[in-house]
């Protein structure tokens, strides 16, 4: 721990410094994941609270803010403090600028390809096709076109499936690389529906890349959109596939995973023979690999902020050594690749006017990530309470969505970065206090269950109009207390009914206007919004 940052901190920010990398060993893995359809550079604030449960408590990635800076010996205010933590984010964002952009990413990949020749694999961990206005309008086609141009060697997925089974199949048939998912089964006949792994030969090394899609896709997202596919962790299948890949001669076994970091950490300790896990889904960015037994866990962040480069020396069927860098994609420092700039501009051209349309101005930072609150979700909840005339608002604890800096206009693009999805209906219904409690307890257990195999990897459902206290270490059913209706200050009555508005229901035929219409109505009537620190969730225990 620490070597990475000292080296980086001593040097000024320049493209050569960012990308300088003495090649090592005989092959290179490049990992990108959870870009959530961000073609352009973005602001993205990392979480200030990211608690771990059970054995993972206090271990990376469950370290945030100043603790993270201390752990990795990163200087506050440095470029790496800006990219990896929430500390002083708004101010540092003005200094260091936006992150990502597919044309910058293309530059980095081309540079590594030219240094490594064919001895390289580019692997995409999924959550690639969803998360922006243009991806929603094109049903993911903009991302498919852009990634076909990047030419990855394989991908797996999660939010991809929310375009529905037919669309997913249509896209996959046209991909120039495999979509892997050994844990996706045909639900009717109980047999694998996707290829589990693909063998490659690079640098004289036989490599097996296993794909693991998000195990809880049919629970976290609408199952009715892909009723014939069943997912799950299926640890025994992963173990079996590792074994059969080794039997086919694999000298290096790579799990391209959308399990979420804690599930991957557990899997690495329980399954023999995986050399590298390229983690995804939980959006963690770690400057150094985490080593579990002999398995290297790589966490490459989200939204195009980072790429991971992992050079490996594989000899005699064994990893003899590695060199790793989490490459931060500073958009003002890295030269855009002209071909990709043009492709992205062409993809966005039909929507450009609408993307730029300004809805309101924010006086404070809008962000989403954090276990309990984010100002962007507070804004969505306020809009739901006001526009849908509800007592209580619920907004799902998604980890995708970009940030808007204080003083900036909130555009249609910014709004869609927080809510572009295929089941956006903003419902209004009545729920008893008991139902609300059951929902909070259930989501809390999906986030804080001590056994990572029972975790789903989102954040806590965001609540407007109601305060509560939570003990993350508590048992299922007893974490949540002190539920209070904020407008009256009264305790929530388990038998009483409340008007509840929310969005992104996984139930089929949910009725209501799309969430972006609700938030647009709110923003255009207020013109200026002033996000404040949310004090209605008390963390206890």
């Amino acid at each position: 721990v620490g070597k990475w940052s000292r080296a980086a901190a001593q040097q000024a920010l320049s493209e050569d410094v960012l990308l300088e990398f003495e090649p090592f060993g005989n092959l290179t893995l490049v990992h990108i994941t959870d870009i959530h359809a961000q073609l352009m550079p973005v602001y993205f604030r990392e979480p200030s609270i990211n608690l771990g449960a059970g054995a993972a408590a206090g271990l990376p990635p469950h370290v945030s803010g100043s603790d993270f800076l201390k752990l990795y010996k990163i200087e506050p205010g440095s470029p790496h403090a800006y990219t990896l933590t929430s500390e002083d984010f708004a101010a540092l964002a003005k200094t260091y600028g936006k992150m990502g952009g597919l044309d910058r990413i293309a530059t980095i990949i081309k540079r590594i390809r030219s240094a490594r020749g064919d001895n390289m694999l580019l692997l995409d961990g999924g959550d690639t096709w969803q998360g922006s206005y243009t991806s929603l309008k094109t049903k993911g086609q903009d991302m498919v076109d852009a990634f076909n141009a990047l030419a990855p060697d394989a991908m797996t997925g999660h939010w991809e499936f929310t375009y529905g089974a037919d669309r997913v199949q249509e896209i996959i048939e046209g991909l120039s690389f495999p979509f892997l998912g050994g844990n996706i089964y045909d639900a009717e006949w109980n047999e694998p529906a996707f290829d589990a792994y693909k063998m490659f030969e690079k640098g004289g090394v036989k490599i097996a890349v296993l794909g693991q899609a998000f195990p809880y896709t049919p629970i976290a997202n609408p199952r009715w959109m892909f009723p014939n596919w069943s997912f799950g962790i299926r640890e025994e299948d992963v173990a079996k596939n590792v074994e059969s890949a080794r039997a086919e001669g694999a000298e290096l076994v790579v799990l391209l995973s959308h399990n979420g970091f804690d599930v991957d950490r557990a899997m690495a300790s329980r399954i023999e023979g995986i050399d590298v896990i390229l983690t995804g889904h939980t959006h963690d960015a770690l400057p150094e690999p985490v080593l579990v037994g002999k398995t290297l866990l790589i966490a490459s962040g989200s939204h195009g902020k980072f790429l991971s480069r992992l050079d490996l020396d594989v000899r005699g069927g064994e990893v003899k050594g590695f060199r790793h860098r989490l490459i931060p994609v500073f958009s003002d420092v890295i030269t855009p690749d002209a071909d990709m700039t043009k492709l992205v501009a062409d993809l966005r051209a039909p929507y450009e006017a609408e993307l730029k349309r300004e809805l309101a101005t924010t006086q404070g930072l809008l962000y989403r990530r954090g276990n309990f609150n984010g100002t962007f979700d507070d804004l969505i909840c306020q809009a739901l309470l006001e526009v849908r005339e509800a007592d209580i608002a619920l907004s799902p604890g998604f980890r995708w969505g970009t940030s808007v800096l204080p003083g900036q206009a909130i555009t249609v693009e910014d709004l869609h970065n927080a809510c572009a999805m295929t089941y956006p209906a903003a419902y209004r219904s009545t729920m008893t206090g008991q139902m609300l409690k059951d929902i909070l307890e259930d989501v809390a257990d999906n986030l804080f269950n001590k056994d990572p195999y029972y975790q789903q990897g989102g954040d806590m459902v965001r609540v407007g109009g109601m305060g509560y206290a939570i003990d993350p270490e508590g048992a299922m059913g007893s974490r949540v207390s002190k539920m209070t209706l904020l407008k009256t200050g009264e305790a929530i009555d388990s038998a009483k009914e409340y008007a509840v508005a929310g969005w992104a229901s996984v139930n089929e035929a949910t009725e209501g206007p799309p969430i972006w219409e609700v938030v647009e109505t709110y923003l255009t009537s207020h013109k200026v919004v002033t996000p404040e620190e949310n004090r209605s969730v008390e963390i206890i225990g």
Partner: protein
Amino acid sequence: FIAMAGLGVGPAAAAAEDTEKKIMDFTGGKAPESGKISLTAPEIAENGNTVPITVEVESAMTGDDMVQSVLILADGNPNPEVATFNFTALSGTAAATTRMRLAKTQSVIAVAKMADGSVFMDKKEVKVTIGGCGG
């Protein structure tokens, strides 16, 4: 994000002693050992109305080394009984898969009775959840 449909609250869940009694009726009063039998089920049910479960029992399935039957129970359903699989020498392998209903989070239990009278048990907790959030 809310999906609470489909699980319909039924009569009170099977009491632990009811489940225990069903096991003892099946084994003839013998307490099952662990080992030999493995029950595979998802950690979290995608749909409480149709949860896939697989049982496999180590056995040559010839001569005396034979699995007679496997009892499946669920200790949190209105009634604990789920199914009984009966195997023969022509089964080749003592393994079977089916799909079952789970009213709520609970343990699924599989008990194997061998030809020599020995009994083995495995158990797996399956969570039934509301779901709906994600990264």
